[in-house]
C-alpha cells in the first residue's frame, strides 16, 4: 500500500522541522501513541493502540527518524508488532518554504501489514492509513498553531 499528499503548515521550515522531530509532538500526534521513550538518537519505542476493522489491538512499536537533512527532509519509519499482526510503515517528509511564515509539507508513504490484520482488515486498510496520516498532520498543524500563538 502506498500514497502521497501535501499539507500547508504554519511556521517557517526550521520551526516546522523541529516540531516534527520533537518526540513530545510525535507522541501527541500519532494516533494511539503512548509511552514514547527514546532508546537511541532518533530512535524511540512506544505503545501503539490502533484498531483496523475487527482487529483492534496493541502494538509494541519502534519509531525511527532516518535520512535526516535538517530542515528539508526526513524519513519516519514505524515498525509495530502485536497480536493482531505486524505493521511496517515508512513515510518520507519533505519541507518547502511557502512564503516567509508558512511551509508546504509533501509526503509519500508505504505501509505493509502482516498477520491477522492483513487477512481481515484489507478492505479497510487504505482508508485507515489515510485516516491515521490525516489525523497526524491535523494534530501537528494544531500543535504548530498553538505554539505560534503562545510565542
Amino acid at each position, binding site marked *: 500500500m502506498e500514497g502521497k499528499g501535501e499539507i500547508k503548515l504554519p511556521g517557517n521550515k526550521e520551526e516546522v522541522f523541529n516540531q516534527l522531530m520533537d518526540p513530545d509532538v510525535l507522541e501527541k500526534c500519532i494516533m494511539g501513541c503512548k509511552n514514547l521513550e527514546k532508546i537511541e538518537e532518533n530512535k524511540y519505542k512506544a505503545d501503539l493502540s490502533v484498531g483496523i476493522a*475487527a482487529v483492534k489491538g496493541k502494538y509494541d512499536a519502534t519509531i525511527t527518524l532516518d535520512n535526516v537533512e535538517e530542515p528539508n527532509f526526513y524519513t519516519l519509519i514505524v515498525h509495530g508488532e502485536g497480536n493482531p499482526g505486524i505493521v511496517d510503515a515508512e513515510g518520507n517528509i519533505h519541507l518547502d518554504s511557502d512564503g516567509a511564515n508558512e511551509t508546504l509539507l509533501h509526503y509519500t508513504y508505504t505501509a505493509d501489514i502482516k498477520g491477522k490484520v492483513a*487477512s481481515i482488515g484489507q478492505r479497510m486498510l487504505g482508508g485507515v492509513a489515510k485516516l491515521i496520516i490525516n489525523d497526524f498532520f491535523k494534530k501537528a498543524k494544531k500543535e504548530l498553531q498553538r505554539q505560534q500563538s503562545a510565542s
Partner: protein
Amino acid sequence: MTDKIGHSIRRVEDARLMSGEGSYVDDLEPFANVHHAAILRSPYAHANIKKINAEQALTMEGVVEVLTGEDILEHTKPFPVGVSEPINYYSMAVDKVRFVGEPVAVVVAKDRYLAEDAVDAIKVEYEPLDAVVDIEEAMQHDAPVLHENIGTNIANQRFYDYGNSDKAFEEADMVISHKFNFPKYSATPVENYGVIADYTSSENQYTVWSNFHGPFTLHTVMSAALNVPSNQLRLMVPKDIGGSYGIKSGMFPYIVLMGVAARKAGVPVKWTEDRQENLLASSSGTDRVTWIDAAVNKDGTILGMKMKMVDNVGGYIRAPEPASLYRTHSNTLGAYKIKNLQMETVAVMTNKSPTGLIRGYGGQQLYFPLERMMQHIAKKLDMDAAELVEKNLIPSDAFPYETPSGGIYDSGNYQKALKTALDTAQYNEFRQKQKEAWKKGKYLGIGLAAIVEPSGSNMGYVTVALTPEEREQSLPKSGCAEGATVSIDPRGSVTVRISTVPSGQGHETVAAQIVSEVLNVEADKVKVIAEMDTATNPWSVASGSYSSRFAPIGSSAIYQAAQKVRNKLLRIAEHQLGEPFQHLTIKNGRAVAEEDETKQISLKRLIGTAHWNPVDLPEGMEPGLHESAFYTISAAKAPAKDDTVNGSVTYGFVADVVTVEVDPDTGEVEILDYVTVHDAGKLLNPTIANGQILGGLAHGLGGAMYEELAYDDNGQLLSGSFMDYLCPTATEVPNITIEHQETPSPLTPLGAKGLGEGNTMSAPAVIANAVTDALTPFDIMIDDLPLSPDRIWRKIQEKKRVVVKEEF
C-alpha cells in the same frame, strides 16, 4: 412399500437437527476437567523462528501449559506422505514458519478466554525470509526454497505417455494450445474443526473426539506421527458433523497437536477452530496452472492432448496430497474418446496454506481447462461447441470403456444425457435469441460442459505419483474397502453400524432404506449408528466420507451385511421348516416358502431362536445375529507397470448447459438458467441426491464466481474473513433445473454410483464457457477465475474496439 431403495423417504436425521438435538463435537463433554487451547499463529509467510518467550504467558491466571515446536519435536515424528522425497511436516512449526497462520505455540488454560489472553503474551522473534506464492515463480531456480532438506520447491513430478501422442500431433491438421490458471479456494462448512483430546499416560493411550470424517488412511498417518501403535490412537466422531465438503479431512494435524497438548499439560484439551483460523490455515483446494496442447483435425476430431499441470500444495506437502493431481488421472480426457495423452504432473510448494481434500478434488482444476479448451477449439474451427463436444463423446456402445490412462468407465450414455441437457435449455432457440440480443447490445451467452464424475476412489491411485520402480519397493495399494455391521437384538430390533462418517449427506436414512429392503422390515424400525469409533467400528483404510463413495461402496457394504443377516435367518428357517433355503423369502415379518405359503415361520421366532434357544439352530451355526461385511470392488486395481490405473470404481456423467447475460459496462454476470443432467446410475434416494447436487452446484458456483483465497506477493492472505472471501448465499444461487438419467453400474450390487461433486467440478467450466460465449463480439478469452465483475470488465477493456459482425 415406499420406504425402500430408490424412494425419496424423509431424512431420519432431520428431526433431531431441526429440534436442536444434534450432537456436534463442540457440544460434547466426553472427559472430566477439560481444558481449552488457543493457538499462536505466524504472521509471516516465511521466516526463521529465532526465539519464543512464553515466560509471562506461563504465569498468567488459569494457564496450565504452553507448547512450542520443541515439544512437537520431542513427542512426534513428521507425518508420512506419499512422495519420494518427503519433507518434515509436523503439527506445529519447528524452527521455521512456511505460511501465514502456521501454528507456532499452543496455550492450554482453564478456559478459552484465558488461553487467548495468554497467547497475546507470548513473544516470538522472527527472522523474515523472502516468500514465494506464485506457482511458476516457485519453480524458478532462484526462487526462495521452503524446505532446505530437499533443496527445491518441487515435491513431486512425473511424466506419462499413453497411446502415441507424438504421432497424433504429427498427423493432426493443427495444434491448438492455451494456458489456464485455477485459483485456490476452500469450502466453508458452518461448523469448523473441533478436537477434544485425552492422554492416559499409564497406557500411552490417546483418545480423541473430533469432527474428522476420514479418509481413515490418515489414522495411520496420525498414529505414525504420534509414534504409537495404531490401537493407541482411538478416534471418535459424533454422529453429526456440520458439513465438511472435504475440508475437515485436513484437521488431522490438529488431532496430533491437541493429543500432544493433552499429554504435556496432563489434562484433556479442547480446541474449536474459529472462522479466521479456518480461512487462514485449515485446508483448501490447490491452485493450478495447466498448459494444454490439443492435436485437432479440421473436422473437429481430437486426436490427442498434451497437458502439463502444476498444483500448488502450499507450505508443506501433506497426505493425501499430491492426490489432487492424480484423483482424476484415469479420467483426464473426460467424456471424450481421445486415444493419445501425454501428461506432466508437478506438485510445487509455496508460502500459502497447505491443501487437501475438497469437494470435486482435482476435478474442477481438470475440467476448467479441458472444457474451456473444447469451446476454444470449436471457436478456432468455426464450429458450434455442442457439435464439437458431441462429435468427440465416447459412444454409448463403447462401455465398459477403457481410457488411455487406465480408467474403466463402467457404464453410461453420454449422448443421450447431453441431448436432454441441450433440449431442456432450448439450445438452438437460445442461439437465435442471442444473435438478436447482440444486435441490441445485450450480451447473452450459452455454455456447456460434459464431464465424467468419478466416485469411489481406488486406494491405489495416489501411488501413481511414484514411479513403477518406487512402487515395487512396497506393498501394492488397491481397493476401496468399507465395512458395516447389521445386527438384530434379542427383542428383534435391527441396528446398523456404519463407518462412512457422514457430514450431512443422510447416510443414516439411506442405510435404513437398504436394510429395510433386504430384511423386509420398515425403514423407521431400523436404527443406524453413524458415530465413528476406531476401537469398535467395522472400518478399514478407505473408510470415511470422501470421493462420493457412499453410494457405490458404503451402501454396498451395508447391503452385503444385511444380506448376511438375511441368509442366516433363512438358514434357521430352512432348518425349522424343512424347506430348502433357495425356496425361502421374507415377507410381512415371516420367512415363507415361495411355492407353498402355508410353510412359514415368523421372523420373531427365528430371531428368538438365535438368541434365546441356540440349541435349535442348525448344526455348527453360531448363536446371535450380528454380521459385519467388508466390501471392495475388484476393478480398483493397483497401478500397472505402464502407469495405467483405474482411479475410481464408478464413473457418472454430468451434462451442464448454462445461459448468462453479461453487462459489458460493469462486467457483472447474471446466470439466467442452469440446466444439469446427471447419470449416477441407480438413485438410492432421489431427494437426497438432488440435495447433494444443489450443494455441489452452489460450491461450484462459488469457485466460478466468488471464492478465492487471495495472497499478496509477501504471502499475506488477503481474504481472511467473509467480508473478502465471498461465498454464494441462497440469493446468488440461480434458477436450476436438475434432470436424471439412470444407467446402472454393473459393478455395484444396487447399480448406484456416487454423486454430489459433479457440479463442483463442472460449474467453473460451464459458467466460464457461457460468459466467453456471451462476449464473443469482444473476442475475449477467459482462462482464469473467479469471474468477478472487475476481472471481466478488465478483459473487455483490453479489447479496444467492438465489432458486432453482421452474421450474428
